[in-house]
């Protein structure tokens, strides 16, 4: 099978600071990739390159068999991006925001309206469709963002902490959605800190640290050497497992006199 995304020697630096050193990755259609790493490891930078937001990098990224640099618009039109932190224009209502996004994907008004209503209904947000989002909770905004990322029926869905701020029911919904999208043959690039979710939903887990991939495989493969959970594997590989000592130090600091 041909990989849908191929990354070769991907590197990126901001001035002196090297964020990505040498990323090499093949992603196959219908896979759910859990892309994990500590803060500042380079996860978001990888995502921004894949979505075409960052266009200055070295190395090669092939999507749908074509070089990302050469066919950026074509790739963008087939990729759905769901960022973290609910970055949206919250003075608009969901209907207005989705209409705006839909226009950027050249969707007709009817298609936008129909899909928006159905998707927001699934998120129990239909009745808030004409309410300004500045009064929305973080979770509600995140649901609108997820809708906006899926509105154009993309083949690849790139999610950066999509569960951020969602309540338990919405988390279950999104987890089920990931499986449903997979059944439809969509490829999902799932970036998160929530180890238990990544462990459950991902076909394959890619762990990056300091701009390099340090582990790549199914959860079974990663566990081969020990019976650890993904969280323990993550901690061992990225910080040497010394979090217990750090927690003890923090607790001790509360009793320090001065």
């Amino acid at each position: 099978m041909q990989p849908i995304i191929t990354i070769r020697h991907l590197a990126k630096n901001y001035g002196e600071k090297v964020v990505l050193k040498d990323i090499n990755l093949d992603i196959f259609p219908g896979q759910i990739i859990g892309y994990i790493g500590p803060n500042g490891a380079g996860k978001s930078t990888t995502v921004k390159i894949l979505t075409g937001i960052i266009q200055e990098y070295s190395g090669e990224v092939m999507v749908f068999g074509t070089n990302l640099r050469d066919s950026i618009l074509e790739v963008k039109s087939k990729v759905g991006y769901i960022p973290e932190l609910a970055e949206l224009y919250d003075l608009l209502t969901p209907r207005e925001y989705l209409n705006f996004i839909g226009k950027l994907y050249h969707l007709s008004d009817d298609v936008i309206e129909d899909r928006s209503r159905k998707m927001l209904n699934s998120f129990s947000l239909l009745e808030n469709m004409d309410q300004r989002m500045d009064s929305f909770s973080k979770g509600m905004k995140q649901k609108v963002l997820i809708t906006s990322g899926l509105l154009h029926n993309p083949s690849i869905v790139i999610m950066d902490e999509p569960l951020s701020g969602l309540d338990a029911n919405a988390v279950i919904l999104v987890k089920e959605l990931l499986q449903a999208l997979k059944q439809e043959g969509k490829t999902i690039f799932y970036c998160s800190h929530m180890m238990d979710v990544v462990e459950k939903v991902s076909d394959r887990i890619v762990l990056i640290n300091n701009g390099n991939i340090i582990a790549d495989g199914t959860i079974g493969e990663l566990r081969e050497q020990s019976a650890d959970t993904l969280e323990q594997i993550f901690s061992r590989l990225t910080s040497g497992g010394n979090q217990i000592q750090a927690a003890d130090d923090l607790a001790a600091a509360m009793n320090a006199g001065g």
Partner: protein
Amino acid sequence: MNRFLLFLIMLPAALWHGLGADVVQLKAILDTKLKLDDRKPLPIGRQQKQKKIKFGSLINAVMFLFMGVLYMMPIITVNDRIASLTIYFSMLTAIITFMLITDFSNVLFDSRDKYILFPRPINDRTLVLARLLHVVIYLVRVVFPLALPGWVALGYMDGWKSATLFTIPLLLLVFLALFLVNCIYLLILRLAKPEKFKDVINYFQVFTSVIFFASVYLFPRLFDRKNPTDFNILKYAWVRFTPSYWLASCWSWIGYPVAISGSAVYSGLAVVVPVACMFILVKYLTPSFASKIAGIDSADTGGYKPVQNGKRPGGLYKKLAYAFNVSDEARAGFIIAWLQTSRSRSFRMRVYPSFAFIPIYFYYTLTLGGESFSEVMSKLPDTSKHLFLLYFSSFVMVSALSYITMSDQYKAAWVYYATPVMVPGRIMIGAFKAMWVKFFLPFYILLAAFVLYIWGLPAILDVLLAVINVTMFICAIARINMRHLPFSIIEQTKQSGGRILKSMGAMFILGPLGAGHYFCVHLLWLKLLFIALSSVLLWLIWTSYANTTWASLVRSENEQ
């Protein structure tokens, strides 16, 4: 200044302790509140989010002092003391009331208190006293610099008696203003939905800004120091029903002549009414007022009616977006610009005052020669001053356009980069059109109606040529200086040298255009030629802006 004010307010610490407040907590709360006041954006002028404001209250004090100098004009120029003080107190009450309305909700009743102070072990008396003392400090900060010049002028002109008396009506005036503000707030709360409350307050901010601007330009003209006025208050006998007149009539106590009889009654009212107002305020209004104001934030989601299954009728903006744009990207730009500018309070605060600035400034320039307004108006049709008005309208559009690229939520602009947008210029031109249709066109139509009314139908060609030239000018400014996607950049505090030079270059375009128009104002064939040439030039600049590529967008971002 904060340390000094805090020192003063904490002098009677024993009293505060006696009233049941925790003095250490009280001082800590007030210290923090004063620091926050110092760092909040200034009430007028361009608010710049990124700029760290350090000495806000000191800058405010200097500004208020300057306003105070303008406001004391009637004291110096109007001969009748009672009349002069009536005008002075009216202006002072107006500005203090407006200042209080704009600041009361966001400064004095900070909704963050709910999360930061309320969960801490602070007793109610400390909280109430902290709030009360904060209001007192705020009032001192506003009223003292505003009233100081008038006070000094009175002392200098009338002697110590007048200066000493001044403090009493001033205090009464503050009582009145506080009462007025409370009533206005309660009225707004009653009439407007809670979620609209902040919008209404926002309009008051806009008005305050306009009052400041109008004061600066018009007061020196109205009250000319070189020509003291014999102001006959009897012509305006209705003033006896205004509190400002009552306050002014207190000067009858120290022997100043009063033209309207019954000064004992009016000066009595000056004392009784504000004190009664204060009593009502403290006894009945304040308790519910504080809780209502505090409830505004939590009421943000209230009053919303869920949509039913039926389709919502398409808005006007959508119809216009389709009418004025061909591509989807341009429609998206049009829609986002239209909606965001309707909703953003900071945009309103920055752009709306410019609509008032133009007539004020026009009036200012008309009366520069020292003639009265009616004289100027009668001669107006013989002049070419309509060109000034028409060309000056570009100010509205430049002001709207300069803020359309900026947003607090600039990070939300990731959508432009993650979606398949081939030519970002299309989004930009869509946004440009939205601003043109929404802000410039209605305003220009009003100006054009005024121009045609005064100068007659032949001026229609001038209206046409000016609209082409002004659109070309603003499009050039946008092309040179604002080549950014809508709401995509963080607000800039400083413009780079290159940008300033470019802006100045663009400003130079308008000068020759206006001058050229002035020279051909009576030459029909030249004017028609000018219209044709300007149209071609406009088309060229327009196309260039609409075809802005990603590469040129990045270049322009790097230049920042």
